[in-house]
């Protein structure tokens, strides 16, 4: 038997084995006992395509994605803010938006730091409703006195020159603002121990005028 026949035979047998394996996998997929028991299979069933691990920035459309600022937390961790449009295949968010009948395209800010990423989105065009797209990130809780970390980050309209947070204790905290409109502010350990949180964001223009006072409720 020539080497060509050996190769041919090997390929045929391997293909046969793969076909048998595929049959087994397929029959398992049809077996209701083998289905992953979830409380709601509605969206899971709609996304049965095996997906690879998704890097966090894949939540945003690549051509719209840009890093708008990097800030350092009080613990020394870096938080990077990336702006862009929501990727249509980022199912974790598109599924809930669709279900909530939110049909407008979304502009988002992705923040990455300390083992977690977050995404906050608003209808496009951005800044139509408000001059700020913000999100509050916390570690610990749910009681505010249990927070071990608490910061607010986001993106502001270009005409905003200064941001000030008003706290539940009546004080104010100034935010760091990047040249690309990203901002970041964090409460300190003493404030967290007292259960202090931010209640409002005040946005000021270059001339010092108050442009918007946004309640976080």
């Amino acid at each position: 038997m020539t080497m060509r026949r050996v190769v041919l035979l090997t390929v045929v047998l391997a293909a046969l084995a793969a076909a048998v394996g595929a049959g087994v996998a397929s029959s398992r997929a049809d077996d209701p006992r083998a289905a992953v028991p979830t409380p709601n299979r509605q969206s899971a069933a709609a996304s049965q395509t095996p997906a690879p691990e998704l890097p966090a920035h894949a939540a945003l459309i690549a051509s719209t994605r840009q890093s708008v600022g990097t800030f350092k937390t009080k613990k020394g961790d870096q938080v990077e803010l990336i702006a862009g449009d929501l990727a249509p295949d980022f199912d974790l968010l598109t599924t809930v938006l669709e279900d909530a009948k939110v049909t407008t395209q979304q502009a988002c800010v992705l923040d990455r730091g300390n083992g977690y990423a977050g995404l906050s989105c608003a209808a496009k065009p951005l800044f139509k409703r408000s001059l700020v797209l913000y999100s509050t990130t916390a570690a610990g809780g749910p009681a505010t006195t249990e927070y071990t970390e608490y910061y607010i980050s986001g993106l502001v309209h270009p005409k905003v020159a200064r941001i000030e947070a008003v706290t539940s204790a009546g004080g104010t905290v100034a935010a760091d603002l990047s040249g690309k409109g990203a901002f970041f502010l964090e409460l300190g350990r003493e404030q967290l121990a007292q259960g202090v949180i931010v209640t409002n964001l005040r946005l000021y223009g270059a001339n010092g005028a108050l442009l918007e006072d946004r309640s976080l409720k």
Partner: protein
Amino acid sequence: VSSRSSERARLRADGADPPVLAGDTFGTTTNGDTMTRVGSTERRVRRYWIFGIAALASVFAALIFATAALAWFQTQDLYWSGGTRAPGQGAGSLYDHQGCWYAYGSSAGWQVPGTMTVALINANGNWVRSKQESDGGVVVFVDPNTFAGATAYDKKAHCVNSGSTTLTPSCARGYWAPSPGEGCA
């Protein structure tokens, strides 16, 4: 050697042409290589090798396929949909189930105005990470978004209306599940 001689003699006695037995050389190729008759025993041995190699290749292919079939993949499910949530009301997904599913993220979508908070909560009920937003869509997820990250601790996804108006939000859990049909490991 003696058996080869007797076999040759037997064939000659039968009046056959001078036989070419296994191991005999009986010419050269155009490249000048010597052509050697392959005997039945050698053929059998070679056949065994061929089938052995083919069988191993088949097992290898089947193993590769089986491994691919056991892969985990990311998906999501809505654990709260279509109902109203008054201010302060929340809803949660199931906790991670070892070998069955592992949450990696928590999301919420709603019609503005309104404020929602999404969280990943550990088995002790502590909110490991939460995110609040007021513009209609918010997500928190482990980063790097890997299987190892999702299996680091038992958790569930949770969402709560943290604003001052009643909402009709949709909340989802992103999680890793075995490949379709594989069931729980």
